[in-house]
């Protein structure tokens, strides 16, 4: 018995990235802008979608709802009369704590791509693994709620670093917390300098107009790009 060394030098996530590119190509062909929407469990992703998805001017939106189990969030969003596709990671994908490109690929046939301009993929609640796995998105949005503490950007830098917008949710609770908002904003800026941040409350509606306008703008600018391409 002897050993032969084989040089490989390949990113271990190459396989996922290749499938993510294929997803992105399919979304582009269908003229669909894709948002990967991520946060810790309970930060308010579904509530923040509920507060805008019914009122996106001129944008037909669909949702791919990623959960380990059940369809509680999908049921909430379906009442807004937007097409919602449920993707459960348990049992088909071993109860994974995130969506990856292959899981999203497996759901493509069930998403009415021809009828929508924008697809929001609500990822499984988790600040770690979802950041590692591209799914074919154009932009990444994350929610960080003020009850999570101001140190989270420093603890989960990959998530904060790879997103295009940070929604700081539950700001109506600030008077009741010891949370240092300036410190949090400073920490985000250290990890992802210059990234756009919005202070919002899904409960009171504060800041929701800006969030809705941003989402509408993303869909509109992507459509423009496709027309000029």
């Amino acid at each position, binding site marked *: *018995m*002897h*050993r*032969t*060394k*084989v*040089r*490989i*030098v*390949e*990113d*271990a*996530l*190459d*396989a*996922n990235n290749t499938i993510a590119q294929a997803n992105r190509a399919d979304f582009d062909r269908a003229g669909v802008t894709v948002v990967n929407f991520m946060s810790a469990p309970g930060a308010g992703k579904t509530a923040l979608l509920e507060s805008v998805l019914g009122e996106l001017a001129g944008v037909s939106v669909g949702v791919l709802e990623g959960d380990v189990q059940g369809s509680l969030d999908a049921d909430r969003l379906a009442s807004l009369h937007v097409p919602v596709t449920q993707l459960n990671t348990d049992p088909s994908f071993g109860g*994974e*704590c*995130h969506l*990856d490109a292959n899981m999203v690929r497996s759901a493509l046939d069930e998403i009415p791509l021809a009828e929508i301009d924008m697809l929001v993929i609500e990822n499984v609640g988790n600040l*770690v*693994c979802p950041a*590692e*796995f591209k799914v074919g998105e154009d932009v990444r949005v994350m929610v960080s709620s003020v009850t999570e503490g101001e140190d989270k*950007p*420093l603890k989960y*830098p*990959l998530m904060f*670093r790879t997103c295009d917008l940070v929604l700081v949710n539950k700001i109506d609770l600030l008077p009741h917390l010891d949370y240092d908002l300036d410190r949090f904003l400073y920490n985000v*800026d*250290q*990890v*992802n*300098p*210059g990234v756009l941040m919005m202070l919002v409350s899904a409960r009171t509606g504060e800041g929701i107009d800006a969030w809705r306008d941003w989402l509408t703008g993303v869909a509109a600018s992507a459509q423009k790009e496709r027309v000029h391409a």
Partner: protein
Amino acid sequence: MHELSLSGAVLNTVVKHADGRRVGLISLRVGRLRQVVPDTLEFYFRFVARGTICEGATLEQELIEAILRCRSCRCEWEIETPAFRCPTCGGSEVEVAAGNEFEVESIEIEESACIAQR
């Protein structure tokens, strides 16, 4: 916790290149920014490798320090904490020169002298 997903990704990459042959050693290059806990990755890898050509293989991990480069003033610096603003000019256009790696660098394949049985 992401070490479980990452060990699955390592296993798939190795299996793709090993062509069905038994693997004795896997050398990884892991950037500090990936926040991988070496012992945890090793633990999960042993678990996902069970019943595969990688069962019992040694996982070698080379830690790559994180080095950033400012696009404005071109200075380079090493970081221990996730602070991505340029300390020299305060610029935000900063690129990661090293530290983002999560690569299978090489593998060692165990081959018996008698390959006629394959």
